[in-house]
């Protein structure tokens, strides 16, 4: 498995850059991902989404459906894409340290 080192900390990731162990996640990792996702700065709105994803994942063991995420955060899908250009899966979930989305994506 490849690893990435950012600001002195090493993370184990897969070939798509998803964190291998959600428990290792810290804010530093989100900052690392933002560079490869084309985001210049993490705003409060970014953190609102990231924190919500983390909370939901801890509570339910799955990533929320898009409709649930948009309903709770109040951000329409269009807004989510403005915040995370790669979208809620490849962008936001990766940044929040969640497991890589599966299925016929």
């Amino acid at each position, binding site marked *: 498995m490849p690893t990435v080192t950012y600001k002195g900390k090493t993370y184990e990731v897969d070939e798509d850059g998803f964190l291998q*162990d959600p428990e290792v996640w810290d804010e530093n990792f989100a900052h690392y991902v933002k560079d490869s996702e084309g985001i210049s700065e993490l705003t409060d709105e970014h953190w609102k989404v990231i924190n919500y994803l983390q909370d939901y994942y801890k509570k339910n063991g*799955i990533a929320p459906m898009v409709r649930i995420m948009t309903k709770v955060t109040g951000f329409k899908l269009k807004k989510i894409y403005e915040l995370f*250009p790669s979208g809620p899966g490849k962008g936001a979930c990766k940044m929040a340290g969640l497991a*890589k989305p*599966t299925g016929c994506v």
Partner: protein
Amino acid sequence: MADRITDIGPPKYDEMWPQYIKDNYGKWKYHEILEPGVLKHVTEDGFELFTVRCGGTRLMTTLHLEDICKIADQYCDGCFRFTTRNNIEFMVTDTEKLEALKKALDDNGNLPKGGTGACVTNIVHTQGWVHCHTPAIDASGPVKAVMDDLFEYWNSHKLPAQVRISLACCLNMCGAVHCSDIAILGVHRKPPVIEHSHLDKICEIPTAIASCPTAAIKPAKVDDYKSVQVNAERCMFCGNCYTMCPSMPLADAEGDGIALWVGGKVSNSRTMPMFSKLAVPYIPNEPPRWDTTVKTIRTILEAYANGANRYERMGEWINRIGWERFFEVTELEFTEHHIDDYRLAVTTWRNSTQFKF
């Protein structure tokens, strides 16, 4: 995100039509099949269009595409099209060009004419070992082996009706296996192997549990790891859980193989569309030529060709003679695997005394 272009969709469908298609759009009066692989369409005004259909391998290189483009440039004003079964069609407007085009295709050698009328046309198939991560069999390999064997039916019209063969390398059934005259389907025969040590880290356990059609998966603590348990007695090896959870692989060289299904169709002509039904539950994987599969498909096809009436599709033939007679004439073995045991199974059993000995 600078200069990013998005949401422009595909080019408009008529953008690449040759002028004579644009001119005659919606005016077609009738068509006929001149010979295997060659069609003629005629408009109300008497305009004639000739189409030559060639087999495509579906998985093709840019060099092969370049070949196709060259022929299209030379004979067809730079236009050609792909069919819904991944064949290639070249179109010309006069018989002189038609003869030249046919000769060019014969000379090319990689573009066999055929696939029209009561034939075995191209096999709709999937990714197999070329690109997918859930297959039980290969796609391109068996397709090549089967089409090699049935080539005589590709460029002839000697069957009672068209026979659609499809292949899917797992029972996600990408493509048309569930509704084809003959279907080749990749199946597993062993439950998934569970990688407990990292399952919880890269899988969403609730998703894996919910993916099981027979509820064989339940959450479990194994060696202090949060993981899942699979009840092998309930598992029917569909592989859905592996699709959702990378820590539950089930591909197995000895376990995996091919199931053959027959009698499906999508058209509404004469009878309703039908699902294909199980004919052979398991044939081992035999790369690179899949001999047993190829032989069994030929057996089924020949029994159909000998037994069916004109215009009768595979499913219609079987429904007419009855399934017990189908197994008799094809000499396929009927086993307990053929008897449906999933939820609505009871509707597939025989509630009648009508039966042939």
